[in-house]
């Protein structure tokens, strides 16, 4: 059995679940300054408070999983992305504590609102930069990173950073549209179309840019036969945008949210098509990076049993907190 391949798939799914879930709650943070008053902010936080910790845990799975099954990739990618990763982690510190702190902070409450916004924004931007810096390629000599510590900063990585900020904001708006009512709902509803437009603008820009980063990518997209897999992706993107627009017109908030998520999935698949079979573009392949079968097999046993279980109780938690959030959110 090819453990490396199976694990690449599991990790890819894990990272996507992270993006899909934490994406919308980071997005809520990014939209924070656009909310009217304290009560609206409490409601918005209430729409994510019971689930954010679970969402973020997929990020731990991504990091930990990489260490466990592709230790070489982990030890090359992380030093290469040193600065954006540390920035992301510090931003997540501010944002993560803000959930509880703002409730108990008394006079400092406004400060933690700002911290929640700033943390979400910086975390999203840093993740986008990391994505771009990874996609543009990482220099490797032997078994370690050989570039400089600011190689991650390029116009391309800044573009992917902005793309993710707008993309997450779109997810956040679509989520709040689903979970809230009244004036707040009307406001986020109006934001969805402009945010979607901006996101798609960035998707187009980054997509056109990527093939020029590296001739391998260009070959994927513009030569036969791999073109056959690649070409439908832009078509699906167009169809999804249309569905999003339709669902908004018909007031189908759930479908609008899912269309926005689908947009992310399609971009994700597109990136996968570009970089395959590398895990460190374009230096190290999945098979080169994989740990010994004994490690991959041992963890696979657990993953096969536990990940479905995790998905089940995560779904149950979302179900328990289904429906619109009451004004002012939850309390304990």
């Amino acid at each position: 059995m090819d453990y490396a391949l199976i694990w690449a798939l599991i990790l890819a799914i894990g990272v996507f679940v992270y993006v899909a879930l934490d994406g919308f709650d980071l997005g809520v943070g990014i939209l924070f300054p656009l909310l009217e008053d304290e009560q609206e902010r409490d409601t918005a936080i209430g729409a994510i408070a019971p689930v954010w910790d679970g969402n973020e845990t997929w990020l731990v799975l991504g990091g930990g999983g990489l260490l466990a099954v592709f230790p070489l990739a982990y030890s090359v990618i992380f030093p290469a992305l040193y600065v954006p990763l540390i920035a992301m982690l510090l931003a997540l510190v501010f944002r993560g504590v803000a959930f509880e702190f703002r409730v108990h902070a008394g006079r400092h409450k406004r400060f933690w609102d700002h911290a929640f916004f700033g943390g979400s924004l910086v975390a999203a931007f840093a993740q986008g930069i990391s994505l771009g810096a990874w996609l543009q390629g990482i220099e490797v000599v032997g078994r370690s990173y050989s570039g400089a510590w600011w190689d991650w900063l390029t116009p391309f990585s800044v573009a992917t950073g902005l793309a993710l900020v707008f993309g997450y904001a779109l997810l956040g708006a679509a989520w709040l549209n689903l979970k809230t009512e009244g004036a707040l709902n009307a406001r986020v509803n109006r934001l969805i179309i402009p945010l979607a437009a901006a996101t798609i603008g960035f998707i187009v820009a980054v997509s056109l840019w990527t093939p020029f980063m590296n001739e391998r990518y260009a070959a994927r997209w513009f030569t036969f036969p791999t073109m056959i897999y690649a070409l439908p992706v832009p078509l699906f993107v167009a169809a999804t945008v249309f569905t999003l627009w339709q669902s908004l017109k018909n007031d189908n908030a759930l479908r609008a949210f899912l269309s926005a998520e689908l947009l992310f999935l399609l971009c994700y698949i597109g990136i996968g098509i570009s970089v395959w079979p590398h895990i460190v573009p374009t230096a190290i392949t999945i098979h080169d990076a994989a740990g010994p079968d004994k490690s991959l097999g041992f963890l696979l046993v657990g993953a096969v049993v536990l990940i479905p279980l995790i998905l089940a109780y995560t779904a149950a938690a979302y179900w328990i907190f289904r429906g619109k959030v009451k004004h002012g959110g939850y309390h304990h």
Partner: protein
Amino acid sequence: MADFSDPVILARIQFAFTVSFHIIFPATSIGLASFLAFVQWRWMQTREEVYLTLFDFWIKPFAVVFGMGVVSGLMLSYEFGTNWSVFADKAGPVIGPLMGYEVMTAFFVEAGFLGVMLFGRDKVGPRLHFFATFMVAAGTLGSAFWILSVNSWMQTPAGYGMNEAGQFIPLSWMEVIFNPSFPYRFVHMVFAAYLTTALVVAATAAYHLRRARQNRTTRKMFSLAMWIIAIVAPLQILAGDQHGLNTYEHQPAKVAALEGHFKTRKAAPEYIFGWPNMETGEIDYAVSIPYLGSWILTHDFNAEVVGLDQFPREDWPNVNILFWSFRIMVGLGLLFFTLGCWGLWKRYRGQLYDSPRLAQFALMLGPTGYIAVLCGWVTTEVGRQPYTIYGLLRTSDSVSPVAAPAVATSLAAIVVVYLFVFGLGTLYTLRLLAKDPPDSPAEQQRGLLDQGGRRAVRIWRLIWPGREV
């Protein structure tokens, strides 16, 4: 002194700083999660209002502390890659899967049920809500299980081989997970978390007792915490002793350093105080008890004990730090034991809530559990130096190829952010603890532990009649 242009030193400071902050939060959340599950279980059994009041009081600080634990832990799991990439590449195949299991069996369990525990009581009914609390508590213990297995493997590696790429590879997972020091470290750390939390709970109750001695919620809080201290403190001393004997077997240089034994000798003394001098190999200003050193390590007054002279100088850990961190931990452990005994005595006299001196003592010891925990970890980790994987991989060979300025900048940013964020977090937590707990109805005051206490007193009377209770 430290050389701040050396990325190894900087990375070590950064790791020590972040992990020391982190451990403070898990030590609290492991203990509080179990405590909350316990009071909720008691409430399900007895329906006494007081347990619910206690639950509502402690869930708020728990939520704050838990949040801080999550974000500080996230930092750690990425730091292995950013700062210790060579270590990660080499040890990943062995420790990675263990951390993978930690995520899947512990972090997801905690996170998945935390929302229901914190916000779901009105939505799911008492049984399911208790189940959520229970699962969160189980998750914290599971997390301790796996991460301590990882740490213990780095201290006492077992069940591994090497491949051509220079990586450690697993040969037997049972031997990797249950490596020689793991059972001791796990028990010692869980007791440490329970003890630390009980000290905080007792101090909180003591603070409120001094203001309103008749408040029944406060009394219950104090009583429960004092029971935990009385039970766990002696067990912890026992566990620590066994842990030390195990370490003497597997890491004799560490024990030689923390005992201050420079020379191998028979009938070694036990140094109580002193200042180890690494130049001369003597303990300056020593206050010692003859023969006791040999007895503690071998349970024989005349046996020979291994000294640092058996090891090459470059393999010595820092003796001064170890000697003192160990003594502070043990000294505090003895103080906790004293508090436990004093509490039992006052309880026996029926004056548990009426002794201002006892309350004062409990209040003073409140934060010291954290000091003991940190000193314990410093003993363990500094004692492992100069290796990250004991005897196999040196710390200086583990570090990432990241330039010193990057590490220095990130270190500075981390220090500023941590002091600010976790400083304010501590302030908010203390504010929550200072809020007066609401009183509970009187008629329902008879709890399991009170009954247990009375039974214990009755048995005691058989042994020593004529004592008033």
